[in-house]
């Protein structure tokens, strides 16, 4: 993505100002605006960090420190879909290692990688707090519960 493409639309800039006005100090809106930046630009590049820093009168270094602290901000292009398999305790007890191994085999990638066609980024993540339906994973915005290898196959096939 070229540097010139890193800019919000006038409507988005209005939304940024609205978000900033909700907090006693406009900095409070930094995380929400970084979510917006990621949704708009696909991931949070160094250029995007610099752009967002400008909207907050913050140093790019501060924004970089924030972006790298949180797991939901991607600093490199991600797949069109993100598949995040929980591998914490309850999911582990319910067979998460087998589910994760199955997904890796199906996609031919390791956790932290993206398929060559840019379709799916795979992650192994900590407790997503749906342990009553273990093993589980998150696919983009959705929680997929009570997984079996067959169910995983159906879900992966449905991702364009």
């Amino acid at each position, binding site marked *: 993505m070229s540097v010139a493409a890193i800019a919000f639309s006038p409507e988005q800039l209005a939304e940024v100002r609205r978000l900033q006005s909700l907090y006693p100090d406009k900095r409070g809106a930094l995380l929400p605006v970084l*979510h917006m930046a990621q949704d708009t630009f696909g991931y949070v590049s160094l250029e995007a960090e610099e752009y967002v820093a400008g909207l907050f009168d913050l140093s790019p270094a501060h924004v970089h420190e924030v972006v790298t602290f949180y797991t939901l901000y991607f600093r490199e292009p991600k797949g069109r879909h993100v598949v995040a398999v929980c591998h914490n305790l309850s999911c582990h007890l319910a067979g998460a290692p087998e589910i994760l191994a199955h997904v890796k085999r199906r996609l031919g990638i390791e956790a932290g990688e993206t398929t060559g066609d840019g379709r799916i980024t795979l992650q192994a993540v900590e407790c997503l707090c749906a*342990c009553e339906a273990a093993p589980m994973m998150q696919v983009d915005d*959705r929680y997929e519960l009570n997984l079996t290898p067959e169910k995983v196959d159906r879900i992966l096939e449905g991702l364009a």
Partner: protein
Amino acid sequence: MTLVLTRSFDDSSSHTLEAYRAHGGYAAWEKAQAMEPAAIVDEVKAANLRGLGGAGFPTGVKWSFIPKNHTGPVYLVVNADEGEPGTFKDRYLLERDPHALIEGMLIAARAIRSALGFVYIRGEYVEPWRRFSAAVREAYDAHHLGRGFDVVVHRGAGAYICGEETGLISSLEGKKGWPKVKPPFPAIKGAFGQPTIVNNVETLCCVPPIIERGAAWFAGLGTKTQGGTRMYSVSGRVKRPGVYETPVSVTLRQLIFEHAGGVTASGRLKAVVPGGGSAPILTADEIDVTMDVDGLKNAGSMIGSAGVVVMDESASIPEALMVLARFYAHESCGQCTPCRESTGWIYKMVHRIVEGHGHKDDLDTIVDVAKRGGGTTICAFYDGAVGPYVSYIEKFRPEFEALISRA
């Protein structure tokens, strides 16, 4: 059985304002508006409500710490950053009873004289965030909100440590979620430098019933030192995993065998985590304890977030510890040397043991290293890791030793 927090969960429209009203919603707020703030605080104190996010601190007492002579803003911050392994109750409340939280916030805000509240929802909770945001819009349209009290819904971005109240405040301020040294406590100097009360979702959902039905009724539901019911998240090797609301006097045995239907597979209980991943583990012989704050404390563990994870005979305790150790190594914020160094190092050691490459001295070394760092860090995260490290090894030592002797 008395259901307080989950009474409307069977109604598929329970998240709407209409259904909430049909179940008697916002009547407590009506009543509270005629009460002096101090009277609300007293009522919550007398109800023996204790924080349900992890620390179990008496809620009314916490509210009374807001400086009386303070003339600037006071903030109410809701901790909806649910992330403790084995816990999922707040997700149910956000999705199925969002108006209960809004009503609890309104009453709490009146008690502490706050005009602005923030609800910090973990970033992964997209559906709960949508549901809760929709309820906030309904509450504005119905003029419950926007008349002296506003609510900002804030999404986190993935970091367990933001569940710790001062880490949460740092994050809300647009910084990385580093916990801060206490004192000053948030009630004195919290979000944006102002007095702030941080409460868990479930804690605030208890407030409307307390105001509506009275402190004596709520206190009477529980034990001498803790009132009410609470929502236990039960998962792992049980027949019916799920959220169970019961009075806090329930025993762990009742929860596992009566509510959750008993143990699956081998049918034989081996161990239980009683209060979320950070609670010291209990053996099958230690489950005749009441599930209130003091019951678990006396049993050498903690109720924490009330996330109950059940392990049967087929579960490997060393593997379970490895999974948790990996979690702590990943989630340490890195500010304090003992926490940053030990969590990484202990994970490597436990991993090595599970892989069959452990050494004879490893177990003593882990326990020794873990204990030495305890109590020296900025926040309770590290103590929450030490509990599992030490208890898993001390209570199930032969199982670890069997892996080592094979090495």
